[in-house]
């Protein structure tokens, strides 16, 4: 008998989810396309005045990324729940939290990473000053990881319900707002020439906490909601 290690089980989950993402790679671009559409609307609605756009550019990019992430959140466990593979993952002898952490990682890679890749383009379209760009990228990476982890717990809680979309949005929003405030706050501070390190460190601290606790909470929530 070869039982395999937790590491090999996580690798199997990651390999499978990456393969599934590749098979449906058109879907993986949806969040990025959504964010581009949202950002394109703003200059059309507000007028192409560079100074006016530059003032609100970081905020717009973050709201677009957050909404796009919210749109993709539901797909995290939905497919696995419907075809019974989630049941199999729960029955696995390896720690559920580690297997779910692997799933969250792939979900971040397939939904948030394309967003991060297009966000310099979005920021450029809104005349964000170039020197703010590194701060924007760092806070985007921290914020999207945090959003994926927090969102996963909420998805796990609502997975047993039909039509959970509205409830999921209500659950997630209070958790997302602080992340938005700190991430956009760092960029705004950088834009005004103020110290921006503190909000980034807060995001980092919250991420460290979420990395440890969110997979555990996610596993507990999943066990509750599939019963």
């Amino acid at each position: 008998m070869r039982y395999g290690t937790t590491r090999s089980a996580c690798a199997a989950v990651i390999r499978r989810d990456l393969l599934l993402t590749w098979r449906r790679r058109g879907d993986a671009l949806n969040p990025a396309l959504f964010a581009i559409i949202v950002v394109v609307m703003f200059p059309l609605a507000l007028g192409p005045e560079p100074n006016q756009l530059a003032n609100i550019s970081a905020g717009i990019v973050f709201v677009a990324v957050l909404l796009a992430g919210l749109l993709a959140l539901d797909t995290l466990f939905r497919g696995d729940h419907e075809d019974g593979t989630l049941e199999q993952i729960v029955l696995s002898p390896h720690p559920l939290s580690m297997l779910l952490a692997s799933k969250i990682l792939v979900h971040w890679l397939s939904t948030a990473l394309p967003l991060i890749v297009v966000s310099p383009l979005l920021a450029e379209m809104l005349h964000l000053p170039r020197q703010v760009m590194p701060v924007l990228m760092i806070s985007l990476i921290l914020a999207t990881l945090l959003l994926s982890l927090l969102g996963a717990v909420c998805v796990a809680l609502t997975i047993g319900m039909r039509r959970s979309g509205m409830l999921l949005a209500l659950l997630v929003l209070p958790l997302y707002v602080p992340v938005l405030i700190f991430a956009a706050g760092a960029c705004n501070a950088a834009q005004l020439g103020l110290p921006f390190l503190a909000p980034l460190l807060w995001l980092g601290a919250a991420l460290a906490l979420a990395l440890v606790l969110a997979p555990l909470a996610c596993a507990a929530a999943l066990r509750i909601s599939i019963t």
Partner: protein
Amino acid sequence: MISSDPPSPIPLLQAEELAYARNDEPVFGPLDFTLNAGEVVLVEGDNGSGKTTLLKVLSGLLVPNSGKILLNGEDLTLARLSHQVALLSHLGGLKLDLTALENLRFAIGVFGLRSGAAPLPALASVALEGYEDVPVRNLSAGQKKRVALARLLLVPAALWLLDEPYANLDKSGIDLVNRLLDSHARRGGAALVTSHGAYAFTSGTPRRLPLRPTP
């Protein structure tokens, strides 16, 4: 020399006063039964008598309201860590976008591999030779069931919990399930098989565990 009786073997699965209720509405039980290694037990009952729920409770997916489940004499939650249970549910647990082989490799990664088993021979033994690289989406319902059965052959679990394994299968598929159950029992495994009684025959007469809707 002192001769003593051989110690009575610990049953693979033992349920004591097992009962499950959903929202205070009893689904089955209280139920007492034992399942020894090498035994196949048929769980019989009408629709809604709680057959699927019983299997989910025994696999540890649902928590029983009362009673105890012992696997090899240990509490279920601990025993599951030793790879004892494999569940075949009516959902199948297969990814439609992946091929049969990719689905089996995932199962091996998550559950482990039975000694002497390999994905390709397992697919061959459920008569799916040549379908290794076909996405499961393009297989028929019966063929999907066969892929799920091949998964059972690969994972190391000694106790199989099969929910309606005969559904969607043709005559040769039904024979296949019976053959797999027989060889699993001969290897020292055990199985609990649900069926609503329409056509469930394993070779020989299996023990039956009738479930009745609780009044």
